[in-house]
């Protein structure tokens, strides 16, 4: 029998969400895929519960949530590495109680008929242990290590604490990577029906926006991609948006309906609210694929069952303000980086709530340029885990020391081109060869062709460029138009901002 040391390392990609988590592996054909747990779910509820003598996690914890809410721990991921003081005002109501354990955030539960305090880090370890076991059951072999995704807003302390929790679960942490970078990597290395996905341009220079609408927040990252190197230019995190905000709308709607029908007000009934929120999440998901969806809760309050229905149009009207808020955050994120929607090459949709059809169509409208790709080829909940699995397989060829040396800030911190570098053609137009935000040093090769048959020399001038702002350009276009046709219903698509030559760097003759 092969010993653990001479067998190949088995690395899984993990993303732990506030509500759901996923485990990804790279299959034999080089594609990423997620593993289902023992209950057949690939989106595994991020929950831990104590029931009598048993510890339950994931789907098993979720099914007993309503009957054992006070011993069920939910929404704990963001509390890792934080103090009780930082967490107390945002703790979930209706499930296990958040308490102070020597300053740390912890939960009070009843286990084996005794009151027990478990810290958030211990909860994470229990949960990650169960993910590891699910992966091992599926793969039929021990899992040795993991690459784990973390939100961009995690502090160093949170990352450290999560790393410790994972290691205590018996998993070596090869690397923690940012969620949006994992998503971008998944799209770069991913294949769909045998076809490589990305073919932007020769050097694959792009500006991507990663929109992650999870359960608890909206996270927008603006990222420059230069020949397979990623640089996050900026991130925006809004903890009030996310799938739960839509659940809240639906819960309010149905609570009102229940009140109208029964005169019972559940606004202050914690238990009823937990039940209703649980039910409307399914209603919301159903509305993403069906035009109407039911909402049913057994014994919602005072022993009375609730049955309701809602159609998609109604939901979309109710959610209109929320859609607008989401779009506002996206456009703020662009503005912070001095970017217009038309300069974005790709928008990558991440997070389960990005499945809402109306939101997708509004995002499409916002990125009006038809050349902007809206990427949703992969399951939005899984794509981050795929990226982790890909990174894990890249790292599995390297020794620990090399990995640790590489991810050191002395290596990652590097100068980036402030302005594009390019040449000027015979019409004095700037042609970008190396775009701004390219990490240095950089090497690129170009072939210049002669235009006369016996030409022996080519003269080129190398310039640094600056962005010309879009507005001026548009005005010129409109002015031209006015002369030609009056009141024509021409729809003008905004153009990408163009570069103009700014500073002559060098002249040279190529022979």
């Amino acid at each position: 029998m092969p010993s653990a040391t001479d067998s190949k390392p088995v690395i899984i990609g993990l993303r732990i969400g506030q509500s759901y988590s996923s485990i990804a592996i790279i299959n034999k054909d080089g594609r990423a895929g997620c593993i289902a747990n023992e209950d057949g779910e690939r989106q595994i509820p991020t929950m831990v519960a104590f029931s009598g003598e048993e510890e339950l996690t994931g789907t098993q914890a979720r099914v007993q949530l309503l009957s054992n809410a006070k011993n069920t721990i939910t929404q704990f991921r963001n509390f890792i590495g934080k103090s009780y003081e930082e967490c107390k005002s945002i703790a979930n109501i209706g499930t296990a109680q958040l308490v102070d354990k020597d300053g740390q955030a912890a939960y009070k539960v009843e286990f084996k008929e005794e009151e027990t305090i478990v810290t958030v880090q211990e909860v994470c370890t229990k949960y990650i242990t169960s993910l590891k076991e699910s992966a091992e059951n599926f793969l039929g072999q021990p899992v040795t290590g993991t690459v784990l995704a973390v939100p961009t807003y995690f502090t160093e302390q949170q990352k450290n604490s999560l790393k410790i929790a994972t290691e205590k679960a018996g998993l070596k942490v090869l690397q923690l990577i940012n969620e949006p970078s994992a998503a971008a990597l998944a799209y770069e290395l991913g294949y769909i029906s045998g076809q490589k996905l990305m073919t932007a341009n020769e050097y694959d220079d792009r500006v991507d926006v990663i929109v992650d609408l999870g359960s608890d927040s909206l996270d927008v990252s603006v990222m420059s991609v230069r020949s397979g190197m990623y640089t996050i230019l900026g991130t925006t995190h809004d903890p009030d948006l996310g799938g739960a905000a839509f659940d809240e709308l639906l819960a309010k709607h149905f609570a009102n309906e229940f009140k109208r029908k029964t005169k019972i007000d559940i606004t202050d009934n914690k238990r009823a609210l937990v039940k209703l929120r649980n039910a409307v999440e399914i209603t919301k998901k159903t509305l993403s694929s069906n035009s109407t969806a039911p909402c049913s809760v057994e014994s919602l309050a005072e022993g009375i069952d609730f049955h309701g229905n809602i159609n998609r149009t109604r939901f979309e009207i109710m959610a209109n303000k929320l859609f607008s808020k989401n779009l506002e955050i996206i456009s703020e994120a662009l503005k912070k980086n001095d970017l217009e929607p038309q300069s974005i090459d790709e928008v990558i949709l991440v997070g389960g709530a990005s499945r809402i059809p109306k939101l997708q169509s509004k995002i499409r409208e916002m990125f009006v340029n038809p050349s902007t790709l809206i990427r949703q080829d992969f399951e939005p909940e899984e794509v981050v885990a795929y990226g982790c699995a890909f990174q894990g397989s890249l790292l599995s060829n390297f020794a620990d020391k090399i990995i640790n040396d590489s991810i050191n800030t002395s290596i990652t911190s590097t100068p980036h081109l402030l302005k594009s570098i390019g040449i000027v053609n015979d019409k004095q137009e700037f042609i970008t060869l190396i775009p701004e935000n390219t990490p240095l040093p950089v090497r690129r090769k170009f072939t210049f062709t002669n235009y006369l048959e016996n030409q022996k020399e080519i003269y080129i001038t190398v310039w640094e460029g600056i962005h010309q702002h879009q507005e001026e350009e548009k005005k010129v276009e409109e002015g031209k138009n006015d002369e030609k046709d009056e009141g024509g219903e021409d729809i003008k698509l905004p153009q990408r901002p163009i570069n103009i030559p700014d500073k002559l760097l060098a002249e040279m003759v190529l022979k």
Partner: protein
Amino acid sequence: MSQTQFVLSVPPPSWTDGEEFRIHCGISDGLIRNVEPVGSQFLAHARRKLNNHSFSEDDR
């Protein structure tokens, strides 16, 4: 390698025969940012930096 498709101008009259290049100024100072430590291109970048290698030394 990238193929460029446009017409380039001829050397100006001031250009002396046999001259190969004129450097006018350097590029603007770069902004220090963090590259994300993911993907194979990053690993190649890290290897060059750790070994203090240039691109061409790295090719060998």
